[in-house]
């Protein structure tokens, strides 16, 4: 067991032998190039001038009034391309370029990571293939068009449930097919080591900024909430607060039609330890290890696994994970839009929906609650417009 590849019992490198040299190459490049002063300076400059960082920490006054607690939004939706995904996609693509790679590939569910990778590839002059399930390609048609406009080739996967799981499996296969020349830009804190660690480090800028911004406003966070599919925005914001046990961390999963039905993507709520997409983590699976179908209105959370660091944080009980349903998510999206004039992504709306569960239980005065608004909802307008309670999405 390569212990450095694990977060507690979870992580590892469960990948074909053919691809192991690429992981060794990546680990080395991340250590030498990725930690260099020059790389960090170049990336920070891009994050500031191109992505638009730092993103604001916004006090959501009307929503605070509604819930009776102080709610703050970390506005990752204000990043260029509309989500936190660009932080990581840009960093990995820059690393790929410095490693001498000519092409990057990526998988995408909601399309935000695909758009981010296609954007970074366009900026840095690299070829780009994006794998996307057919169902997601349909429900995120606009993002597919954006990727193509940015010069990427979108490979639509028609196998299985035709969502993120199948796109990820196909992307790994595509990566192995061209293992000597392409760089796989993984979109979340998932996959074999060193990806979960590297992506976490590229996304921790969210929490580091939020912590500084809270300090500037002289506010002490009581709760930090983020949605969890693979879990990159959540790890991104949680990391800065992990050492401070007085801050309660909440990860919100996609409950789909309900966690008591088979139609959800609530991995940590309903899954158990297993291996998927190169990592040991918690997985939705049957007794034989067959990966189960997942269902969520959110294409970005529609995934049967979760990043291994989340599995570890769940295991040691540092973060509490709960699920909200499609219906609760849509209600929260509408409420936030009406009260704050901000249309959050369906993914982020899961984190917002958790306020409904949390706030009524909070005693002993007003609490400061930070919600990570991981992306904006423009891409989801069709899904919201056509939403019908009880419909199986994905």
């Amino acid at each position, binding site marked *: *067991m*390569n212990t450095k*590849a694990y977060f507690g019992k979870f992580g*590892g*490198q*469960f*990948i*074909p*032998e*053919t*691809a*192991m*040299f*690429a992981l060794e190459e990546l680990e080395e490049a991340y250590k030498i190039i990725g930690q260099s002063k020059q790389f960090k300076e170049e990336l920070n400059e891009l994050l500031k001038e191109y992505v638009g960082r730092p993103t604001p920490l916004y006090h959501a006054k009307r929503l605070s009034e509604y819930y009776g607690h102080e709610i703050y939004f970390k506005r990752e939706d204000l990043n260029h391309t509309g989500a936190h995904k660009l932080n990581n996609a840009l960093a990995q693509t820059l690393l790929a370029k410095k490693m001498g790679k000519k092409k990057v590939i990526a998988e995408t569910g909601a399309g935000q990571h695909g758009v981010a990778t296609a954007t970074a590839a366009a900026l840095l002059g690299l070829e780009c293939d994006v794998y996307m399930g057919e169902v997601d390609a349909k429900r995120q048609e606009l993002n597919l068009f954006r990727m193509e406009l940015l010069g990427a080739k979108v490979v639509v996967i028609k*196998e*299985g449930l035709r969502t993120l*799981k199948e796109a990820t*499996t196909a992307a*790994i*296969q595509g990566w*192995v*097919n*061209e*293992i*000597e020349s392409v760089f796989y830009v993984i979109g979340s804190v998932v996959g074999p080591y060193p990806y979960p660690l590297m992506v976490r480090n590229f996304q921790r800028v969210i929490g580091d900024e939020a912590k500084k911004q809270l300090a500037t406003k002289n506010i002490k966070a009581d709760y930090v909430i983020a949605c969890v599919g693979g879990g990159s925005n959540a790890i991104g914001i949680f990391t800065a607060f992990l050492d401070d046990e007085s801050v309660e961390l909440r990860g919100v999963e996609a409950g789909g039609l309900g966690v008591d039905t088979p139609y959800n993507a609530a991995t940590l709520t309903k899954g158990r*330890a*297993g*291996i*998927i*997409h*190169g990592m*040991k983590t918690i*997985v939705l*699976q049957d*007794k*034989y*290890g*067959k*990966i189960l179908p997942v269902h969520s209105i959110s294409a970005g959370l529609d995934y049967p696994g979760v990043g291994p660091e989340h599995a570890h944080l769940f295991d040691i009980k540092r973060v509490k994970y709960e699920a909200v349903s499609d219906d609760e998510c849509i209600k929260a999206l509408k409420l936030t839009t009406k009260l704050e004039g901000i249309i959050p992504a369906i993914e982020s709306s899961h984190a917002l929906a958790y306020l409904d569960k949390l706030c009524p239980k909070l005693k002993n005065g007003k609490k400061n609650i930070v919600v990570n608004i991981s992306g904006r909802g423009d891409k989801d307008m069709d899904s919201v417009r056509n939403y019908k309670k009880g419909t199986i999405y994905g």
Partner: protein
Amino acid sequence: MDNIQSAFKNKNANIGYIVAGYPSVEHTIEFIDNLDKSVIDLLEIGIPYSDPIADGKVILDAGLEAIENGVNTDTVFEILEKRTSKKPIVFLVYYNLIYAYGLSNFIQRSKKCGIQGFIIPDMPYEESEEMFKLCKKNDLSLIPLISVTSEHRAKKLLTRSSGFIYAIGAIGVTGGEQTPLNRLKHMVGDLKKMSDLPVAVGFGIRTNEDINITREYADGAIVGTSLVELCGKFRGEYLLEEVKELFN
């Protein structure tokens, strides 16, 4: 002799790969019953899996069809427990299926139904220690996969290897384009210098011509995708005849 090495004794081994339960459980039972009459010296049986990251479209689709038909790990064990053929059989199985079954339980039941080794495509050396120890204790083989992209790791990989060496003939998934022959020959030559284990080449071997070329430099040729395709089209004596022609 019914162990893995017997397949390579005095000759170049014909190694086949099938997906258990494809196109049906009955087909698989029939194929295994006929094994002693076939030209196949060693059979790899794939346990169908929902997310096989090393499989090309043909094998992936066959696996999904078998799963749709209700095939699971227990079904595969039940098929094998009834077999009468003496030819060596190994499992090609993704690690999550073993993990879900429990490593010890999986190994014990495999042993009981005469399985002689395991090929685990998503379990590289770094994750293989526990499986290696259990295999060793139970006198079963852990067959290493070695690719031209991982040749520099061969020495390390061979410390936990037995049965034979599975040299990966294509960079990519099963059924893909074969690696340039010079590079492949070079790798197989190096592996033979490093180990006494027979070296068989799989991935990218589809035709009789491919098999004959492989025989010139390796100890065995492994055919997966083409054999799975044949299993989908033929059965009984007709299938045996097709397999014979393929390996002839």
